[in-house]
């Protein structure tokens, strides 16, 4: 019992460290890639090719003055960034990174918690993530954050539906909600080929859920000052920032698990390499998704808010429902 | 395993709190939230019984209670918005135009 607890604790520490480093270097990657798209260099001076820039940024944010406006609702003002950050970190708990390895007779899975409703757990945490944004906007007691917060929460709950519907096609095909089994079911054929429309719906909804361009009007710099995080500074702002990137990592992980075969890929070599290669394939695929996210950010313009909501409700949701119905029809015909 | 009596006790206490809040509070939205508290207490009782009778029908009932609560919350909040727009007030003390 104590051994199992210690193992889980060790896994949690390792995953958190890796996640935090990924988030920090995702920021670096974004600045570099967007800069190259815009024909400039990006971070260059701090460390070789700006690789120490995240460290410099972290130190800067840590030492900034923590400014709290006078009329804010203190409890909620403090609560919102912690809520956003902790929920963003929570969904990593059910994501499997690779096959199980056997060390000294003990089988260790590359997953912190193997729930048999793992997919629903991630959707639940995404649903709760709306609160961080809404409460931040409200507690700031100022018009830009309130507007940004309301818009952002309305957008997030609208696209949650399409997010779930895009994934339902895969769930119907594999008839399980456990993430590990969904990946196991892709050994012969990746789900992207069986559910292309589902993937497109899921990916569009995921970009909207994480408030990224082209759906980032609620926090658009030129429209709403800073949106819901205008009044936040220093550590609390950093928490929102990291929460956003952690959410991006989570939805990228989910996309690779559900549609691109997770950790499945060519396995070769000595046993140690065999154990680590699945994790490498998984990380490679997640990295590709991060790159696509940043690529889209550097390329596409922003949706207007009413266009955004109309797109979510009048196009994405019906297409999602149609996808589920057609998948169901094909499954029913196949089994009869 | 937790005795059924303890589960029902938790359910009854939450229900009692919901009823008390429903009667005492003046703000319409808070009253509505106390109604949701009562519904959740009932859900807990259903799931407790589903566990102790080994029958999943209790859980199906909870499923439907959640769905109905969602529909009721949507319509109720729309009514509250309409009331606020007409009366400029969210206190039920101000909704007394049908009193004798």
């Amino acid at each position, binding site marked *: 019992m104590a051994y199992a607890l210690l193992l889980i604790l060790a896994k949690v520490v390792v995953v958190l460290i890796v996640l935090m480093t990924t988030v920090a270097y995702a920021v670096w990657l974004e600045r570099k890639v967007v800069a190259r798209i815009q024909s400039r260099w990006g971070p260059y001076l701090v460390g070789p090719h700006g690789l120490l820039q995240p460290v410099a940024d972290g130190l800067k944010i840590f030492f900034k003055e923590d400014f709290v406006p006078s009329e804010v609702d203190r409890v909620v003002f403090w609560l919102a960034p912690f809520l956003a950050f902790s929920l963003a970190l929570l969904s990593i708990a059910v994501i499997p990174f690779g096959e199980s390895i056997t060390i000294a007779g003990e089988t260790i899975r590359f997953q912190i918690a193997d729930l048999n409703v793992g997919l629903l757990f991630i959707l639940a945490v995404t*649903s709760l993530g709306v609160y961080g944004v809404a409460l931040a906007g409200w507690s700031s007691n100022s018009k830009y954050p309130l507007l940004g917060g309301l818009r952002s929460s309305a957008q997030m709950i609208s696209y949650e539906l399409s997010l779930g519907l895009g994934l339902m096609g895969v769930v119907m095909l594999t008839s399980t909600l456990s993430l590990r089994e969904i990946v196991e079911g892709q050994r012969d054929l990746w789900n992207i080929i069986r559910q292309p429309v589902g993937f497109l719906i899921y990916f569009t909804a995921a970009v909207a859920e994480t408030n990224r361009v082209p759906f980032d009007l609620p926090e658009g710099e030129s429209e709403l000052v800073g949106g819901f995080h205008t009044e936040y500074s220093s550590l609390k702002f950093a928490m929102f920032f990291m929460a956003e990137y952690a959410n991006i990592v989570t939805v990228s992980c989910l996309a690779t698990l559900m549609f691109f075969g997770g950790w499945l890929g060519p396995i070769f070599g000595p046993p140690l390499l065999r154990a680590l290669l699945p994790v490498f394939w998984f990380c490679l695929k997640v990295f590709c998704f991060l790159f696509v996210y940043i690529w889209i950010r550097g390329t596409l313009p922003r949706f207007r808010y009413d266009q955004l909501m109309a797109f979510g409700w009048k196009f994405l949701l019906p297409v999602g429902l149609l996808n589920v119905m057609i998948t169901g029809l094909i499954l029913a015909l196949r089994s009869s | 395993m937790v005795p059924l009596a303890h589960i029902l006790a938790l359910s009854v206490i939450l229900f009692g709190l919901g009823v008390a809040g429903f009667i005492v509070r003046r703000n319409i939205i808070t009253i509505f939230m106390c109604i949701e508290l009562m519904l959740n207490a009932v859900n807990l009782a259903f799931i407790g019984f589903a566990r102790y009778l080994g029958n999943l029908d209790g859980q199906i009932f909870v499923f439907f209670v959640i769905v109905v609560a969602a529909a009721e919350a949507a319509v109720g909040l729309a009514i509250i918005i309409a009331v606020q727009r007409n009366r400029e007030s969210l206190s039920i003390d101000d909704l007394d135009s049908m009193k004798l």
Partner: protein
Amino acid sequence: MVALFYIFAAVAILAGLSVVLLRTPVYSALSLIVVLCSLAVVYLLLGAEFLAVVQVIVYAGAIMVLFVLVIMLLNAHREEPTDRSRLARILGAPLLVVFLGEVLYAIWRQFPPEQTTAAPPADAGPRAIGELLFRNYVLPFELTSILILVAVLGAVVLAKKQI
């Protein structure tokens, strides 16, 4: 494992008290979210895993977001204490305690804690619930979908500025 039930039951009761006693609507809403999440954990402990997650997704993640958005939209302020009835204030809390005590006594008589043993846990995963829902209870299922449609239409009509 069993201790977790009591811990989360205590959290639920404390949060329930906060819903009733706190004066600011936003704090009441946040306390209600805490109640919903701790009840979700209790459902998990009672073997209702699918319902626990549905509770968080639908109840805590959608219905309560609706509440919080409406509170923010309508700018609900702190509630001032009214001075309506002194009788209610004196008799209220004791009467509530007496009422709860009666019900608890009746429950203790009917289901004595030592005698009631749990049936072996039925498989309550999504598959089992899905089978029940789409075989025995398909008619209520379809009716609730019509109910949701009516609720959506009703909410849109009621909240519009002009029809």
